[in-house]
């Protein structure tokens, strides 16, 4: 049986995740952020509906398990990845140095954002969630869509924009994409109902 979230469930879930990621983003020195989530049906996704306007992205993947299981992706455009790394690691580091530490640094940034969102869900719904270590790769926008479409049992995709402003520079947009499967939808709907009573 296919489970999809109602608009009310989605709004509650989005609010919880927003609270967590907002705290994490604001924790970065000189970085602030805000986000406006939206959700999509898996069947309807493409580069336009996911708003993947750039060609290439740095993608952090992390899976979580527990009462709820699923996968989260954190995306930044390749251009923004370079800018974030430069700001995080300082102007002294040359291009080769940045390339060497890109996977490490972006993995940690993604880990912090994903765990903040998951921790907010876990605490709000009184469940325990474990997460795997992160995996970082660079993908084209088409490949990201294909990867999401190939995920089994995924029904909905929750997309949260994350806007980082570093040292007063232009906003560096990223996305936190949560892949919601049948079991997750069923469990989260029940937990949200319970938490409302």
């Amino acid at each position, binding site marked *: 049986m296919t489970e999809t979230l109602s608009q009310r469930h989605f709004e509650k879930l989005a609010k919880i995740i927003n609270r967590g990621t907002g705290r994490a983003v604001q924790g970065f020195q000189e970085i602030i952020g805000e986000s406006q989530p939206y959700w999509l049906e898996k069947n309807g996704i493409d580069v336009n509906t996911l708003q993947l306007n750039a060609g290439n992205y740095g993608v952090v993947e992390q899976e979580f398990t527990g009462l709820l299981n699923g996968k989260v992706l954190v995306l930044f455009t390749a251009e923004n990845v370079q800018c974030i790394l430069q700001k995080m690691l300082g102007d002294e580091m040359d291009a080769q140095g940045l390339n060497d*530490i890109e996977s490490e640094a972006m*993995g940690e940034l993604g880990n912090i954002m994903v765990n903040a969102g998951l921790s907010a869900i876990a605490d709000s719904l009184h469940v*325990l*969630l474990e997460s795997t270590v992160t995996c970082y790769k660079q993908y084209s926008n088409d490949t990201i869509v294909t990867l999401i479409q190939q995920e089994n049992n995924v029904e909905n995709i929750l997309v949260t924009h994350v806007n980082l402003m570093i040292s007063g520079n232009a906003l560096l947009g990223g996305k936190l994409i949560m892949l919601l499967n049948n079991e997750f939808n069923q469990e989260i709907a029940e937990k949200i109902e319970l938490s409302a009573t």
Partner: protein
Amino acid sequence: MSKKILIVDDSKMSRIFIGQHVKAAHPDWVIQEAGSGEEAIALIENELPDFCTMDINMPGMLGTQAAKLILEAHPDIRLVIFSANVQESYQNEARELGTILVAKPVTQASVGLALEYFLGA
């Protein structure tokens, strides 16, 4: 007096950043690093630190498990859990271990909380 601190984190970047903030506040402290709970336990068998920061999500054993083993064997070490995973259950676990959980990201403020805990003993 010079102190020794062991930074346990699978992220090299986090280890570097924590170390930089510690050095900025206490230039004379000696810094050791470990990339996993298992490595930290092995290191401590040979050389006892005064303080320890411990990540949770790492390859191998969870940081909370490593912290429990370390504190059982060496209760004099002052240890903080330093993690992005700030679920209440982990905060409770930290409290049960007699320590605190400091939330990442690694910043001057978050490292400052850890230092305050270390020196408040």
